[in-house]
């Protein structure tokens, strides 16, 4: 019943979320500033998308203080890794089939 197409994950609909996941798939831990530079997005934009991914339990947000400065880092969870890989395979199958 459930076609292959349904394996696409709505949580990764958005480009910025895709970007966040892409960075975290290949880097063990990334801080806020690096992520922001890598994706070229605003503070607020990044924060809202990371918290959305955190709500899905796809990423882990760790807030630490380095001296007086807050330092936020992101890591991908096991669930997130699996979800993203499934999403990628779904995309690939989808494109492979239609072409």
């Amino acid at each position, binding site marked *: 019943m459930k076609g292959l197409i349904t394996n696409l994950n709505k949580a990764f609909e958005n480009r910025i979320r895709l970007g966040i996941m892409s960075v975290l798939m290949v880097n063990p831990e990334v801080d806020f500033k690096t992520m922001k530079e890598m994706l070229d997005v605003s503070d607020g934009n990044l924060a809202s998308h990371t918290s959305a991914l955190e709500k899905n339990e796809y990423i882990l947000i760790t807030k630490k203080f380095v001296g007086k400065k807050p330092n936020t880092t992101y890591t991908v969870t096991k669930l997130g890794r699996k979800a993203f890989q499934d999403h*990628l395979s779904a995309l690939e199958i989808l494109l492979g089939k239609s072409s």
Partner: protein
Amino acid sequence: MSDQNKIIYFEKQSTFKMNENQKHIEDLQQIRSIMERSTQFISLSGLSGISAGIFGLIGAALAYLKLAGEFSISSSNNRLYSGDVVDVMDINFFNVVRMNLAFGPTLDLVIIATGTLGLALIFATIFTARKAKKDGNNLWSPTAKKLLVNTAIPLVVGGLFCIALLKHGLFGLVAPCTLIFYGLALINGSKYTLPEIRIVGVLNIILGLLNTIYIGQGLFFWALGFGVIHIIYGVVMYFKYERK
């Protein structure tokens, strides 16, 4: 509930199949590019390789002249330092080092080698900074830092090891060691930059190992490894990635 929403959502989407496919292709391209950019320092310029190679060859030529010069001078008198290169630096620290080493030509060669390395690094940085700017990338990124640290580890270890070799008078092993450790450094750093660097690393290691068989031919292997291979690499990279 959310699963059901998903299905409805994508059923709706499938009516825009063409546009959707285009979007998916772009998504995949973006994912790929971000993964590469966030792990690889891609701004390394081919011109860096070419300039490093040219300095390598100049260094080898200077060393050759120095050696040829030393032999003729030391046979006529004991003045070991006729060096044009040394004069500038002949002031304080090196006098001490020289006394410890008590071996003139070696110190000159070390200075030539260090100078070559320094100039090669400076120009490599300049060309790479230029390319990073052109590509709209940061020269100093976490990836650049990883590349630098991972390249520096074998390089520093190799450098210290070579100093030990010099101290123990094992001069013939210095050239092979520099080539081998340099090759290892490149291989270690290659994970964080364009993959072609890895080949340069492997070639340098092979040259270094060959040099251990033909000890005393260090200069030839140096010219080949630090000079010719760098230039070939630089030209290939320049035409592959930059001249488009």
